[in-house]
């Protein structure tokens, strides 16, 4: 029997029960107490995240699957992010596809209709392995998202050797539901029938424990799951049809029935008759039925009188639906098989795993500095695939389905989607492994600030976020320190911007095959409401205004990933982010700009690519850049709080900025013409770089 429980944990179970649990019971405890389900190594610190605030309807503390926030007229927005890293490493197509399926079920299990997906992908590089991973990951996401009719509206793509063995595949989903119709995931009264829909099979047995262990290679086959988007679509349609007839619902994820039943009972008890579970394969043992993680299943708590109606919706699609047990008042979780007791454990034991605070230690960071000329750095950065045009990926997604994608993927830094009440939201996901590697605390703040700026760039103000914290083995003190620091940073920034963190996930044990942790990669997905007008950016001739201060901060940047760190670590000065974002929103509403971009990966130079690629030349007067005289910093610093703006009224920005307490400077202009950067009147031809920017992924991956 393979368990992830420590000997101390096992001792605690024995002493609480005053007996030796049987094999099935051990497996149930193992699933419930797995890191994946219990957050035992992270919960202490997750509690410091600001989870409440104006507009929050449902947050993580409620033990729910996804958070919800008010978006007006009685509508709520439901938001969730999750990764499928380990399954995607061994089977990128199915791993990524089942990740999409899982996140969709998290949204529908609140009764919400999913309206948009985001995907944030990180692989090692554009070598043979990276290409194989990326092609299959994108195809897997496309296959599932397209088949169920939910548009993928944006994401991130990053290439960094730290992810060679352990790619990161994060998917986020937003859904909408009338606030009064949100379905809880826990029950409050005994007597409700437990109804399971979907077949249970052998696939994915032990997945929760799989996610809580590091990858050890080929012996992980049992945890591979095959995506069935068609079944997923039936599940979405039928679940949303019956949402008004169920008292609680929960999707079956890590830990299968064991976890879903226990968490739904939420301290009450449940009795489940395993022989009633519809099986896909014959001869499954009772233990296998309990912990199977077969996809495309849901658990409902239903009043007896509604069971028939609920099941009819599924039977209409030839989809199995069975009463498998009921909620009882005695706080015990009992699984029986043909009358024999298989598992009988107290609810409280299962829901109260011991929490851990692991030792922490500061990692000593050294960075080798490589000499590089400005011209060479410019070429190398502009040719980096992290900055490349992502049309190759987006064109594989059905991003127009739903007739609500107003600002399409790739068109701006955030997508804009229309809600059923006529308002618009913007969504964006951001991570920054370069900065997190040198300073996880500043990085935690910076990714929240970046997401906030990204939303502002299309006219939206952040209202809620979810986080996904991806790290190595928490038992390693350096990893754990980074983990804690990044949460502190995220908490502070979220509090500062009044953007509550309404949900989140933690993924540990992301390591390469030699046991080295990945660069810390916490990720933020933020949603914002458009305040007035939204922006569909377009590049035209005009003046370039830079908002904010450019500092000599080249450490923890794309530049330092390639050429080593110089200067200081980019620190998040949240007030600058807030004020600059407010100014951008105002400018959009007063039609003072045609295009803007927050400055991030690749610095000012990186943000010029979309301009250069649209048949324009850029002229920059470096003396006009406020904050540093160092040319490398001017071009590549990733200092926060900055936006590059294209306008025909630079004066307006100067006045408004000084009124707000930030700086704006006209640093150049954009003219029609071939792709060249005129740096203080010296022409640097960039046609080759721009050509590559546009076609890199298509050329490498077609």
């Amino acid at each position: 029997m393979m368990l992830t429980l420590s000997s101390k944990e096992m001792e605690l179970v024995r002493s609480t029960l005053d007996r030796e649990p049987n094999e099935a019971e051990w497996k149930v405890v193992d699933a419930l107490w797995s890191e994946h389900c219990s957050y035992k190594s992270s919960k202490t610190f997750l509690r410091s995240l600001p989870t409440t605030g104006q507009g929050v309807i449902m947050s993580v503390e409620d033990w729910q699957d996804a958070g919800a926030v008010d978006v007006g007229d009685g509508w709520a927005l439901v938001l969730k992010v999750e990764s499928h890293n380990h399954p995607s490493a061994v089977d990128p197509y199915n791993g990524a596809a089942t990740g999409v399926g899982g996140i969709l079920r998290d949204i529908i299990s609140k009764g919400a209709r999913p309206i948009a997906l985001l995907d944030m992908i990180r692989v090692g590089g554009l070598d043979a392995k990276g290409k194989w991973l990326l092609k299959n990951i994108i195809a897997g996401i496309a296959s599932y998202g397209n088949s169920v009719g939910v548009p993928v509206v944006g994401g991130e793509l990053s290439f960094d050797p730290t992810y060679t063995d352990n790619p990161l595949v994060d998917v986020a989903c937003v859904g909408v539901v009338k606030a009064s119709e949100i379905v809880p995931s826990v029950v409050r009264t005994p007597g409700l029938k437990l109804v399971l829909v979907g077949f249970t099979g052998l696939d994915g047995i032990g997945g929760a424990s799989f996610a809580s262990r590091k990858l050890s290679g080929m012996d992980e086959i049992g945890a591979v799951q095959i995506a069935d988007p068609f079944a997923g679509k039936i599940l979405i349609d039928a679940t949303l049809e019956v949402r008004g007839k169920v008292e609680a619902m929960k999707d079956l994820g890590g830990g299968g029935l064991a976890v879903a039943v226990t968490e739904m009972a939420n301290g009450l008890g449940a009795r489940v008759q395993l022989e009633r579970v519809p099986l896909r394969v014959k001869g499954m043992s009772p233990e296998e039925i309990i912990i199977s993680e077969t996809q495309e299943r849901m658990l409902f708590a239903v009043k007896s009188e509604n069971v028939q109606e609920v099941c009819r919706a599924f039977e209409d699609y030839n989809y199995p639906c069975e009463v498998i047990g009921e909620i009882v008042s005695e706080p015990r979780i009992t699984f029986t098989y043909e009358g024999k007791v298989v598992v009988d454990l107290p609810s409280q034991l299962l829901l109260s795993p011991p929490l851990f605070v692991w030792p922490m230690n500061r990692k000593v960071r050294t960075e080798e500095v490589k000499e590089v000329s400005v011209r060479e750095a410019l070429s190398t950065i502009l040719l980096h695939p992290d900055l490349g045009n992502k049309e190759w990926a987006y064109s594989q997604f059905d991003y127009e389905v739903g007739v609500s994608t107003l600002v399409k993927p790739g068109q701006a830094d955030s997508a804009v989607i229309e809600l059923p009440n006529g308002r618009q939201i913007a969504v964006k996901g951001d991570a920054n492994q370069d900065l997190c590697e040198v300073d996880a605390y500043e990085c935690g703040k910076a990714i929240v600030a970046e997401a906030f700026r990204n939303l502002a760039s299309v006219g939206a103000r952040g209202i809620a976020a979810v986080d996904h914290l991806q790290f190595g083995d928490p038992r390693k003190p350096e990893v754990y320190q980074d983990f804690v620091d990044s949460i502190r940073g995220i908490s502070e920034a979220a509090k500062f911007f009044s953007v509550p963190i309404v949900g989140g996930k933690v993924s540990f044990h992301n390591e390469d095959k030699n046991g080295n942790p990945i660069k810390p990669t916490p990720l933020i997905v933020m949603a914002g409401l458009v305040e007035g007008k939204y922006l569909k950016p377009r590049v035209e001739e005009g003046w370039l205004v830079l908002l904010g201060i450019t500092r000599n901060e080249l450490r923890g940047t794309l530049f330092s990933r390639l050429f080593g760190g110089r200067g200081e670590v980019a620190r998040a000065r949240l007030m600058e982010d807030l004020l600059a974002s407010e100014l951008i929103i105002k400018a959009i509403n007063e039609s003072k700009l045609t295009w803007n971009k927050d400055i991030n990966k690749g610095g000012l130079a990186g943000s010029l690519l979309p301009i250069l690629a649209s048949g324009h030349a850029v002229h920059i007067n470096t003396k006009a850049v406020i904050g540093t005289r160092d040319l490398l910093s001017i071009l590549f610093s990733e200092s926060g709080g900055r936006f590059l703006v294209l306008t025909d009224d630079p004066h307006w920005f100067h006045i408004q900025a000084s009124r707000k307490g930030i700086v704006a400077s006209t640093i150049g202009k954009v003219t029609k013409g071939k792709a060249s950067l005129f740096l203080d009147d010296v022409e640097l031809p960039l046609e080759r770089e721009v050509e590559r920017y546009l076609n890199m992924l298509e050329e490498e991956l077609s």
Partner: protein
Amino acid sequence: MRTAVLKFPGTTCEEDVVKALRLVKAEAEVVKFNSFDPDRYQGVVIPGGFSFGDYLRAGTIAANSEAMKGVREMADQGKLVLGICNGFQILVESGILKGALLPNLKLRFITKWTYVRVSRKDTPFTRGIKDVLLMPIAHAEGRYYLEDEEEARELAVFQYSNPSGLVVEEVNPNGSVQNVAGIANQAGNVIGLMPHPERASFSKLTPDGSTDGLEILRVFGK
């Protein structure tokens, strides 16, 4: 016109189509595949999506369904039948329209805004319509194939073109013969196309503010 928007398991665009049809004042409703009564409707739209997961071949499992017998009846009676994307695939798989829709030459799903020339104006859907329409495609299996290219050109109602309506190979997104984006039957009452008119029906969603999709859907409002 009373119009059924047919939903198979796996159909994804039924609500979008209904939303667009309401703009042209059609009396449209979503009808599930297992409760479709063709006699109640003057027109039917088979919307896009992935009916039965597009397993085996796009559209082929739906083509075998009872509901498609009803659609064939309507087609034979001269009622209006429109298949969009997966709907077009279902119409060719069921033999109501000629030809086949093969995997795109690039062997992957492609979303793209495309111009199409209206090559036949003798159908109720295209009578008096503009010459060139802007609509998005979104499919993995949209390469129209018919052995007899001459016949394909005769049946073609929409052909991928440049913005001025010139049918040239460079703009062919998927390798269709004769750049075919959509065809009709001889009579013209049954039409199938890969681009999505319902996604080109709302000016805020289109690249240039046009609403060319409504031109095709308008007939259901009569």
